[in-house]
């Protein structure tokens, strides 16, 4: 009888731990479901606020899951016609001035995309958050007048770019509103703010982001989605190298 009591006690004590873990992972799963569409087509503006000046770039981009991505810059004139293609682990950039497609690899992946606070490496993330991170619910907070969960995400494997993330997730919409990305040493590398969360094709999707590289002195990079279509049919040829020179 005494032994059964001990088992019951252990079971009772472990239930909240299990529930918390399950909840955190469920939240993460919901975020993935919200943020990763089968396909997407978007027209966006990226405003890079460097120490010296602000520049606005416009682009049209297509994606299929997290593994395929194609974008073409439409403005300003110097960048117009520049294209990027990501297929699984490979990334190419096409420059119309030189008519060259260059594969970005190695250390170059750590470089900034168009002078922004995003690196090519950030674009190369393949998996869902749930695949890359184990989540722990750390508490609750009101952020941007929205009740949020605070999630701590720890990388499940070494290949993941950021070892730890702290994320504020909108409780109602299951969309991220704020994130901090950390190195394994604990150093803060980047912060991301999300706002203007809109209902797009049955999902809650942030239409504006602000990335800030904590190691750079600039004023951050803002990213605005002007038009977006989710889960639409995109022809295969869009995600082919032939598109770069078209």
């Amino acid at each position, binding site marked *: 009888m005494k032994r059964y009591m001990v088992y019951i006690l252990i079971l009772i004590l472990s239930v909240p731990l299990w529930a918390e873990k399950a909840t955190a992972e469920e939240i993460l799963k919901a975020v993935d479901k919200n943020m990763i569409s089968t396909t997407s087509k978007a027209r966006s503006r990226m405003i890079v606020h460097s120490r010296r000046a602000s520049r606005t770039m416009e682009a049209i981009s297509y994606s299929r899951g997290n593994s395929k991505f194609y974008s073409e810059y439409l403005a300003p004139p110097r960048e117009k016609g520049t294209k990027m293609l990501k297929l699984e682990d490979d990334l190419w950039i096409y*420059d119309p001035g030189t008519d060259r497609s260059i594969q970005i690899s190695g250390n170059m992946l750590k*470089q900034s995309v*168009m002078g922004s606070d995003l690196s090519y490496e950030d674009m190369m993330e393949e998996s869902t958050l749930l695949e890359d991170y184990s989540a722990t619910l750390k508490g609750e907070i009101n952020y941007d007048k929205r009740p949020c969960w605070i999630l701590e995400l720890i990388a499940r494997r070494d290949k993941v770019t950021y070892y730890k993330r702290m994320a504020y997730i909108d409780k109602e919409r299951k969309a991220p509103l704020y994130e901090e990305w950390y190195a394994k040493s604990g150093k803060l590398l980047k912060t991301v703010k999300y706002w203007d969360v809109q209902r797009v094709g049955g999902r809650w999707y942030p239409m504006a982001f602000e990335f800030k590289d904590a190691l750079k002195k600039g004023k951050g990079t803002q990213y605005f989605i002007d038009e977006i279509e989710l889960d639409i049919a995109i022809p295969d040829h869009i995600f082919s190298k032939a598109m770069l020179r078209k």
Partner: protein
Amino acid sequence: MFSFIIKGIMRDRHRWLFPILIVMSAVSILVFGFSFLEGYKQSYIRQTARFNTGHLKVVSRAYAEMLDLKPYDLALLDVSEELEEYRLRYPQLEWAERINFGALLDVPDAEGNTRVQGEVVGFAIDLFNSEKEAGRLQLAQALRNGELPQRSGELLLSSLAADKMQIAIGDTITLMGSTVFGAMSMQNFRVCGTVEFGIGSLDQGAVVADLNDIRQFLDMQDAAGEILAFFKSGEYERKEARLISTDFNANYSDAADEFSPLMLRLQDQGNIGYILNMLDASLFWMSAGFILILAIVLWNSGLLNGIRRYGEFGVRLAVGESKRHIYLAVLAEALIIGIAGSCLGVLIGSGISLYFNNTGMDMTVYNRSSSMLSENILYTSLNAYSIIVSFIPGVLSTLLGAALAGTAIFKRDTSQLFKELET
């Protein structure tokens, strides 16, 4: 008195031969060591100034904060007007605009796809309008294959990188980098020649291109990452550099504006001041070390001499010569030996130094693995300072050795002298 002592020394070979040989060897090594280090220091200053720092350098305040990273996105913009003003205000200087940049060098295959790529550091200098810039980087001497750029769109590549990436003269390569505003940029260049500077850090992968080509590549029209200034005399003048930089910063720099110009002296840049101080300190410690070692050796030699001359000192004391007088005589002997040995050492050391001052020493092997900017052929630099700071330790150490060994004279007991002499 001195002629009497000199006669005494000359007639007793044991008194002078060994000490003079020691002092002579040590002083000649010191003279050579000093002239070698001085030559190295001058080579380092020359090479660093040519490739990196100038004798003075003007950059933006924001650029100066991250000087070692060469952040050309924090370059000085619209520089031509300012440069004209600088030229008028400081006529003793020659000016050179430069851009140092990092880029990805991509080599296409026949179909235009990436065959091979690697990271390079780039030097943009005025190749076509400046008569001196190509000379400052010693491009003609560094050229291994091909020719120097003759027209826009050509660049030089370090031969190691060319070999590694199998790039031939005439091949077209693409440089990929970021513009001054952070946008991605690509530009095709024809490799017209390969170079080897003999500087490990540069020979691993460097490109040299014309300033205007790189301005176009990096969207830096009328901009310069750095404006280098060189004294027309060709030599770095420390005091003058301090006066000019103080005047410049008082007139042109504004602490509230991170993009206002700031003038830096050669030794203000990176760890160059520290390295120069280290070289100066090493000269001092080398000298101090030699004094100590020599003094110990000569002390020992003096002790042996004291034992050998035990009887002589005893007789001199017995006939009434004071201990102090004998001690001073020993010191005078040491002074003469020290001067003679140091003179010989200076002659021999100067001879060796002058030989290497003319022929130079090939340091190529050592420079390959070094990140320090110094020339492949190192010429020793003999000057009055090297001679004086070598001569003084030669004399001082002999005196110190004799002074220590001579103290034994004061321990002799006069009442025991005759007893000692009998035995």
